[in-house]
């Protein structure tokens, strides 16, 4: 938990890791488009192939993908079953009188499950291969054109940076407060759920107060270090759009083109 700042980032120096974060964000968006273009389960092989290539290139263990799928396992099962019940079809596999299991329903259930698995796995590829800091930089740069319509792109990125920085600090703090309250006889472990949630109040209130104080001190320190908003600010680490980035985007577009061609053909 202490390394939560790194998110699920798995450090590495593969081709995928070295891509510009902006490229990887664009790749993920295109990949999502790809999975939504597909209307039949057999064509899901194309986004799947794309994902497998990316996974192999990134040299990230398949285990991490499974870990990222774990939180959605109940949702997947639920959706699979619901679709079995509520999709009608012609090819009856099993007739129980009040409900028929049809081939179409089974196919539809499989199709939607595969789509969700591919979506989540693809999104995890982004966070597994990009550090949160690089991701923040990428988001700031990608949103920069929106500054024209007064979208606070820099402020958003700065907020994300500071949030990432203070997650471990605030976790330490809450642990300290918890211990302090426990040493005064506070009980966090027993009672029903309502009682337990209520017992969090003596942790949350001091934590809130202290984070406001921290925010105030941090603002003073930032001002002292000449912070005056995003105007005229430079970055030490420049994002570089290189040959490899162009190549990666072209390949992704090629996949989409192939998919569209196949969809039109059949």
């Amino acid at each position: 938990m202490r390394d939560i700042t790194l998110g699920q980032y798995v450090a590495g120096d593969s081709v995928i890791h070295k891509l510009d974060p902006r490229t990887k964000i664009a790749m993920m968006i295109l990949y999502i488009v790809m999975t939504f273009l597909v209307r039949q389960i057999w064509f899901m092989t194309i986004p799947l192939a794309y994902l497998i290539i990316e996974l192999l290139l990134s040299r990230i263990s398949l285990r991490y993908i499974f870990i990222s799928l774990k939180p959605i396992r109940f949702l997947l099962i639920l959706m699979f079953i619901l679709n079995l019940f509520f999709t009608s079809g012609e090819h009856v596999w099993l007739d129980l009188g009040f409900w028929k299991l049809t081939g179409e329903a089974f196919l539809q259930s499989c199709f939607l499950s595969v789509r969700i698995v591919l979506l989540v796995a693809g999104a995890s590829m982004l966070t597994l291969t990009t550090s949160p800091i690089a991701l923040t930089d990428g988001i700031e740069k990608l949103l920069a054109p929106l500054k024209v319509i007064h979208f606070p792109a820099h402020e958003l990125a700065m907020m994300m940076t500071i949030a990432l920085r203070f997650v471990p600090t605030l976790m330490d703090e809450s642990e300290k407060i918890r211990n302090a309250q426990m040493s005064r006889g506070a009980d966090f472990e027993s009672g029903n759920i309502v009682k337990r949630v209520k017992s969090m109040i003596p942790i949350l209130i001091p934590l809130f107060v202290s984070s406001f104080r921290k925010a105030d001190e941090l603002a003073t320190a930032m001002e002292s270090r000449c912070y005056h908003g995003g105007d005229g600010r430079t970055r030490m680490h420049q994002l570089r759009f290189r040959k490899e980035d162009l190549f990666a985007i072209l390949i992704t577009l090629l996949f989409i083109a192939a998919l569209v061609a196949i969809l039109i053909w059949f």
Partner: protein
Amino acid sequence: MIQFDNVTFQYEKANVPALSEITLKINQGEFVAVVGHNGSGKSTLAKHINGLIVPTSGTVTVCGLRTDNEDNLLKIRQNVGMAFQNPDNQLVTTVVEEDVAFGPENLGIAPDEIRLRVDEALASVGMSDYAKNAVHHLSGGQKQRIAIAGILALKPKILVLDEASAMLDPSGRTELLQTVRKLHAAGMTVIMVTQYMEETIDCDRIVVMKSGRIVLTGTPVEVFKETDLLSESNLVPPETVVIRDSLRKLGFKLSDSVLHADQLAEAICPLL
């Protein structure tokens, strides 16, 4: 270099001013310690130097620039680096080198130049090996050195430490003091606000504050003579000075310039 002219400052909703009629001049290359008990106004004084606080009346001039002119503030803060008490609450980003780069990035300096400044700053606080580390894994003393590196990357002429050692353990405090002394030796003007009198022995000048006023100013030798005035301001002189004075009361002849432990030892030995 820094000039306080008849400065009075009162916080909103406060009954008494936090600073009253302060006049103080700090020269280039000086190492000044500002000491005082809680609520003596020493931190308020420090925050006036880079314009975080602007006087209610009177003026503060830094490097020829007045702090009450908003247009001067960026220029002033470039020249006056400020380190604060809580090391955690002044680091902005997760990675050490990115945090050190924060200041120069704000000034819009070219990326290559920032890289040079960051490396230089980390080297001068002896933290080069930690450039890529996560900030929250460092000790308090190390965090405070990173904070100072972040200030040095702005290439300031003046370094203000606002009770920067207060939250550190003894070894962290020594680390910090050594770093500051090294910077002073390299020509930096240092203003150190502190409650620990031990830290002030090597200063050029000590400014003693009480209830928003300067009650005493002088070299350590001069200041530590005035034991009564110090205890009136609720300040305890360094242990060496306490021992020196107790021995004097017993009739031993010890000079006022005896401040360090080794000086004290040297002075006592012939008497035995």
